């Protein structure tokens, strides 16, 4: 059983290494095949043929950040849903009530966000 566990994760590691080796190998092989003539014109930033005005590392709207925050909160919530769902057979009704309370509190958060119009994308 312990062998099974370690072998499983060895395969996962092999997949990660292989996934890393393919792009590195292909890009290195490509280096010998492709032309390399970087002139200044080619290396300009593309903006549909216009000269770019100003940099692009600008300040973004705060709504993106709120979405990311909502995402983190609900991500944590879903992580709790998984062990609950797996163990549900052996826990029964009490666990259902517990989870209902947990989710209700977070749904209140969602409704609050909804009412405050942070879910609007304008």
């Amino acid at each position, binding site marked *: 059983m312990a062998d099974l566990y370690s072998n499983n994760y060895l395969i996962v590691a092999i997949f990660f290494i292989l996934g890393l080796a*393919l792009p590195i190998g292909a890009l290195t092989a490509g280096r010998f095949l492709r032309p390399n003539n970087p002139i200044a014109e080619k290396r300009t930033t593309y903006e549909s043929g216009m000269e770019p005005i100003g940099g692009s590392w600008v300040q973004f709207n705060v709504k993106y950040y709120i979405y990311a925050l909502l995402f983190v909160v609900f991500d944590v919530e879903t992580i709790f849903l998984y062990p609950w769902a797996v163990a549900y057979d052996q826990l029964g009704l009490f666990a*259902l009530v517990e989870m209902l309370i947990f989710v209700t509190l977070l749904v209140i958060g969602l409704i609050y966000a909804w009412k405050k119009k942070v879910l609007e994308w304008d």
Partner: protein
Amino acid sequence: MSQFLAQPLGWGTGLIFALSAVVLLGVVLGFVTYAIYFERKVVGWVQFRHGPTRTGPLGLLQTVADVLKLLLKEDIIPALADKPLFVLAPLIAFVPSFAVLATLPFTESIHFADLGIGLLYYIAVSGITTLGSLCGAWAANNKYSIIGGMRAAAQMISYEIPLIMSLVGVILMTGSLNLIDIVNKQAEMGMWFFIPQILGFGIFIIASLAELSRTPFDIVEAESELVAGHMTEYSGFRYAFFMLAEYVYVFGMASITTLVFLGGWLPPFEFLGFIPGIVWFILKFSFMVFFYMWLRATFPRMRADQLMQLGWKVLLPLSLVNIFVTALLKELL
């Protein structure tokens, strides 16, 4: 595969694992090559065109030629770009897309790592790709890229929540996160999960389309407004790896849908059981891939604001309802 997994690790078994992974990589690359060809043919067929016909018989070598072209193309890194991150980003995007395949079983005997947390592993690791495309977008230092990358990331994170939650219903019915267990449970119930979990299935399909950023959710690429979003400045093989990651996810997502909702390698009727499981898997898998392409040829693109509202205001509450209805029914029945 199971008997090798149970053995203590030696050079022999290690070599078998490595070789099987290389074989899968070959299969996936072959799949991607012909999925792109097939997609162009299907879309062409729907729109009354021929699609590629010139390169090789029936245009079969079209994608091969495209890949060779990308390999021979000059690698341009914009002067204003942030070079280290620009180089690293395609790697961050591609590696997880291949690593997630480690947990997929294709039949009861043809599988790789048989993880106890298989389904969760797939979802968790696939989330890292968002980081890759966001880094690529920022590193390119291009306005189209960064707007596209931010939009893409916002879309990905908004639809990841319904995607994860829609699977909880299935977990409730199975009591396991292992993908082989999930398929075996469907055999035991004599019913594929898309029937009892029809709401979850619907949410999963919509959210998975958004995660794959395919039509109608391809605002990420939006060639007409954002010039391919986070990939604007990428060319040659770096661009190829972003595209490759996208198609490898098509492979992964079609497999996951097949396994979780469409019964994996199970035959639709008992008397068809003499046909080997892998054939059924491939049939269902191909149907899912065709379905993605069919949608692309049929649907218009969704607007960015509608997209976000659909994710948070419709799919998220619905998936919560699905979870509690499933749990309650399980308690009552």
